[in-house]
Structure formats: structure tokens, C-alpha cells
């Protein structure tokens, strides 16, 4: 029953996506070319990657609004270590991942072990991490406005290259969907995440280390932000501290639109994946339709509110119907 309902929401998401593609295709026929569609993902891959793992956090009942600033921080770490530290750019990537994980671990630790609300901690985290990237820039003497550019070609190819005609970010996205799906829906750890979100106390009494589970989801979302930071840096060929600062709205929209309850305990990776493509395509499509970028946040904000309001209304209706049925039986 529950699975059926979830599947239903995901099918309607796919329908929304197809409708969206058709509408944008009508406005601008170039939009529907396969290569355009395939390469469009470069524009919003960061949203997709982070949304997948932010789903984990939201299912436990938390939220992480610091992911956007972790993108900028990892980008700066890569740039500064490479340009000013003289490191091989490939060696900086594991360090960037570590930085992302550390940021996530820091927020996650405070949320899980001190009981301060996730919103407040990640709010502080957002200020802290975006501040740190400015500090690193400032201390190392690089200009925050120009960023660090001139990355080696092999690194730039990481995001701009393709394998058998399929762009690398697309392949990465696919791998991460499978990976996160397996983790969340096929492992004991995934079940624990759901259980923690549904009822933290009963999870605790069942012997689940809820604190570690909660902390680990933030580490995962921090690492996914680092991956997004790497891809974005490679795509642009330069590192800037303000990368990703505007993405929080889109990322949360993708997660919520994907059917994950912001109150926790319910949700899934597949929904998020489809929803993140919907959100990303909307950004990309509006740009291609020649609509100024300013309208995009209006569209995404509306999408977020309408989606949640409609889902709520549908949920309430179903609830009422069940109650009425029971009343009739009695």
C-alpha cells in the first residue's frame, strides 16, 4: 500500500517532467535536441548530487542549509591547494572530500549530541563555512571576485568530457543514484535512517545508535556537497568562494518535491532524483527560453509551494476518505 502510493507520486513526477520538457520544447525547439538535453545536466548537476544525499538528512527529520556554502569552501580548498600550495590537482580532491565530510561531521555532531535544532546549527554552519572560504581567500591573498582559474585541462575534462557520447556528470549522477538507492532502500543502515525519522525514541529502544545515524547523514550530505564542489570547479575551470550560495532553495525544493516529508520518516531517493531533474530543467529551460534568470527563483519558489500544498491537500483528502469509510463500516 505504502509502496504503491510512493510509486504513484514518482510516476506523476515523471509526467510533470515530460510535460515540462514538452512545454520548453514548444517555446524553443532546440531544447529537445538530445545533445542539448544531455549536456544541460552540467548546469544543475550540483543540485542533483546534493539533493540525493540531503534526502537522507531530511528523512531523519533534520535539514542542512549549509550545503551551498560547503560547495564554495571545497572549491576554494581545491584552488588554493593547487595554485598556492603547488599540489597536484588530483591530490587535492580527496582533501576536498575530507573537508566536506568534516563540515558535515561538525554540524552533525552538534545536532545529534547537543540536541540543538538542525536549522540553527546549519544556519551557523552556513555562515561559518562561507566565512571560512572568504578567510582562506583573504589570508592566501587571492581576490574573492576573480577567483582562481587556469586549472589544468585534464581536470577541466572531468566535468566537460564524455564517455561514448554521454557526458561525465550524467554518468556520475547515475552512479550516485544507484549508490544512494542501495544505501537508503536496501541496507540495514537505510532502514535505521527511516526508523530514526519515524520515531527516534523507539529507534533508540530497538538498539539503533540514533545519534551516530543522524551524524552520519550530515557527513554524507557534506561529502555530496564536496563532490558537487569538485564537479562545479572542474566545469567552470576556476574556483570561487560564492559557488553554490544560491542553490539552497533549489536543493530543498528538489528534496521536498521528490516526496520526502520535511518532518522526516518518509521519502525516497528516486523521487528526489526525478524532482531534481525537474527543478534543474526548469532553471535550464527558462534560461533557454530567453527568460531572464531573475524569474527562475520565482518559478522555483512557486513550484515548491504549489507542490507541497497540493500534496498536502491530496493527503488530507485520502485521510478523510479513510475515516469516512471506517465510519460507514461502524
Amino acid at each position, binding site marked *: 500500500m505504502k509502496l504503491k502510493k510512493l510509486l504513484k507520486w514518482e510516476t506523476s513526477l515523471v509526467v510533470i517532467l515530460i510535460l515540462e520538457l514538452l512545454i520548453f520544447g514548444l517555446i524553443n525547439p532546440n531544447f529537445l535536441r538530445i545533445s542539448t538535453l544531455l549536456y544541460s545536466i552540467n548546469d544543475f548537476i550540483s543540485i542533483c548530487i546534493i539533493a540525493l544525499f540531503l534526502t537522507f538528512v531530511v528523512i531523519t527529520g533534520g*535539514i542542512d542549509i549549509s550545503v551551498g556554502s560547503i560547495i564554495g569552501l571545497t572549491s576554494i580548498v581545491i584552488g588554493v591547494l593547487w595554485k598556492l600550495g603547488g599540489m597536484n590537482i588530483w591530490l587535492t580532491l580527496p582533501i576536498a572530500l575530507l573537508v566536506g565530510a568534516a563540515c558535515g561531521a561538525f554540524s552533525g555532531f*552538534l545536532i545529534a549530541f*547537543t*540536541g*540543538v*535544532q538542525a*536549522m*540553527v*546549527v546549519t*544556519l*551557523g*554552519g*552556513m*555562515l*561559518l*563555512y*562561507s*566565512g*571560512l572560504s*572568504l*578567510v582562506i*581567500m*583573504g589570508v592566501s591573498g587571492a581576490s*574573492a571576485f576573480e577567483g582562481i582559474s587556469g586549472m589544468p585541462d585534464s581536470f577541466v575534462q572531468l566535468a566537460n568530457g564524455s564517455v561514448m557520447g554521454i557526458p561525465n556528470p550524467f554518468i556520475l549522477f547515475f552512479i550516485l543514484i544507484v549508490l544512494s538507492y542501495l544505501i537508503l532502500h536496501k541496507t540495514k543502515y537505510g532502514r535505521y535512517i527511516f526508523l530514526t525519522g519515524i520515531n527516534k525514541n523507539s529507534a533508540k529502544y530497538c538498539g539503533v545508535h540514533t545519534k551516530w545515524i543522524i551524524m552520519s547523514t550530515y557527513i554524507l550530505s557534506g561529502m555530496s556537497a564536496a563532490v558537487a564542489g569538485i564537479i562545479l570547479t572542474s566545469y567552470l575551470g576556476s574556483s570561487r568562494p560564492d559557488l553554490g550560495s544560491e542553490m*539552497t*532553495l533549489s536543493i*530543498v*525544493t528538489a528534496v*521536498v518535491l521528490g516526496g520526502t516529508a*520535511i*518532518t522526516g520518516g518518509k521519502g525516497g531517493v528516486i523521487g528526489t532524483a526525478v524532482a531534481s531533474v525537474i527543478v534543474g530543467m526548469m532553471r535550464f529551460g527558462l534560461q533557454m527560453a530567453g527568460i*531572464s534568470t*531573475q*524569474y*527562475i*527563483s*520565482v*518559478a*522555483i*519558489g*512557486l513550484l*515548491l*509551494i504549489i507542490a*507541497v*500544498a497540493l500534496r*498536502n*491537500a491530496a493527503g*488530507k483528502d485520502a485521510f478523510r476518505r479513510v475515516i469516512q469509510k471506517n465510519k460507514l463500516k461502524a
Partner: protein
Amino acid sequence: MKRILLKLAKMREISAILFLIALFLIIGIINPIFLQGQNIMLTLKGSIMYVFLAAGMTFVILTKEIDVSVGAILGISAAVAATMLRNGNNIVLILLVTLLVGAAAGFINGFGVAKLGVPSIVMTLGTMGILRGLMFIYTGGKWVENLPDYFKKASQVEFLGINVFILITLTLIIMIQLYLSRARKGRFFAAIGDNIEGARLVGVPVNRMKITAFILAGIFSALAGLVYVSQVGFVGNVAGSGAEMTAIAACVLGGVSLQGGIGSVVGAAFGAIIMSSINTGLVFLKVPAYWNNTISGTLLILIVVVDALVQRHLSEKAKKQRLMARTSFVKEDVTIEA
């Protein structure tokens, strides 16, 4: 007298005030210029905008909701006010329209949360995006400049040696505090946040009060927008972006619990003054500006975490004491170690 003192010591606002005094003293010791009356006034003046935002936010947080769109409301109402000022409209009309913009934005938030059942973080995140976009469209992405002098000078008018804006803010905060703690309706906000079902059962119009809270948050953000226009003198594209975070941080610092039901607007106002004096203080400490976010973020996390730990310690201690009192009553022969 003793009872009043005891009550004072328990108040969460006190720790905010103590922290503020400590902050001023530390900065003052390193750079005594900071403690000159003129500079303290400057710091207070700079915090007015955040005091308004935090005051509006207090209503929302008391009902256990959150509003992350206040920065965007500030931005769009500032843009509207500035454009009308430039066009030479009547000042009364400008004030009315600006406050109406804020109230309308707040109403949309409240309607979505109370009537449509959208979680407030999602709803206000959505309206934040919408309002930011609308602001860009409204201003055409250009700065609104060349405002009439009389409005800019309004922020420098003094009465009895104190800036008029500070006096207005002070009066408003005292009025809100009295409303929230003394008026029947004012106490509904905290009642809803404390126990929504209970509030509903005793006849509190929950949905209407929630919408009211969001409208008030909108109006206060519009007021903050007016202050912004008057003090800054122009409206850029990013006016008020990130201000919502400062406002939430101010509330949390001032002891307004995000779990709803606990907190006062006085505390939130002190929190706002703390948040903006950190930034002003850093200037006096000659710390490069790029440190600002790192330091505010660290302080925010530090204060909130320490506060949570202290509160937990206190409640555990109280629980233990109650337990001990009970066990000693039941079994008198059992010795209890303190």
C-alpha cells in the same frame, strides 16, 4: 524584592544582556574608542534594522513556526519605498504602501502555513525565492538611487541627544513586550507554540493567530526596509539578503526557543544588538572584513550549543533532585549521596 531578583536571575534575557556587556567590555578594552558614547550610538543605530526583523520573527517563532523570507520582504519593501521616494510621492502614502507590501507578503506566508498546511520552512523558503525574483523584476536589476535628502536625513534626527529611530524602536519594543506578556491576545502566540492542541481546546483561534504572526513579521520587515532605505540611502539588488539568518540568530541568542512557546521580544532585541555589534566590533578590532561570517557563525554555534548544554544540565539536575526527594520520602533508611 527577593522574589523579583530571583525571577530576574532565571530569565534567559539576562544571559543575553550579560553577554552583550561582556562583548562591549572586551572590545572596549582592546580599543577604548569603541566605548565612546558616539560609537555606542553608532552601533545601536546599525542594529535597528535587525531589531525590527527579530521582533517580527519573535511572533512567528513563538508560534513554533519559522520565517526565512524576512530578508526578502525587507528587500522588496525597501525597493518599493525607494522607488516611490524617487518618484516624489507623498511620504504618508509611501509609508502605507510599504507596510502594506510587507503585510501582504506576510499574509501569503501565513495563509500557506495555516490554511494550506505547508511547513513554514518550505513555505517561506518558497516565498523568499519568489520575492527576491519579483524585486529584481521590479527594479530591473538596477540600484534605486538619487533619493530625496529629507528621507536620508530622517535617520540622523536627534531628540534629547538620542537618535529618533532608536527612540521609536525602544517604544515599539516596550509596547510589543507588554502586548505579548500582558494582553490576552498577545499571550495566545506563546500558547500556540507551547501546546497547539491545548490552545485549540481552550478556544484560541490558532490559524488566525498564526496568520497574524506572519503578517506582523512582514510588517516589521517592511519597517526594517524603511530603516534600511533611510540609513543606507540607496537600495541595491542584494538588500537584506542573509538578513533572515541574522534575525533568526538574534532570536535564538535572545532566548526565543525555536521549539516555540518560550521567549520575549526584549531578548530578541538584545540578540539583534549582539549580532550587529559583533560586526561593528570587528571593525574596531581592525579585523579584516572577510572574517565577519566566520566569527558570527562560530559565535552563533557556540552560544546556542552552550545554552542547550546548560539548560539540559539544569533540567537533569532538577529531575535528579525531584527523584531524590521522592525516594527519601518512601524509604527513610536508605542513605542518599548528594
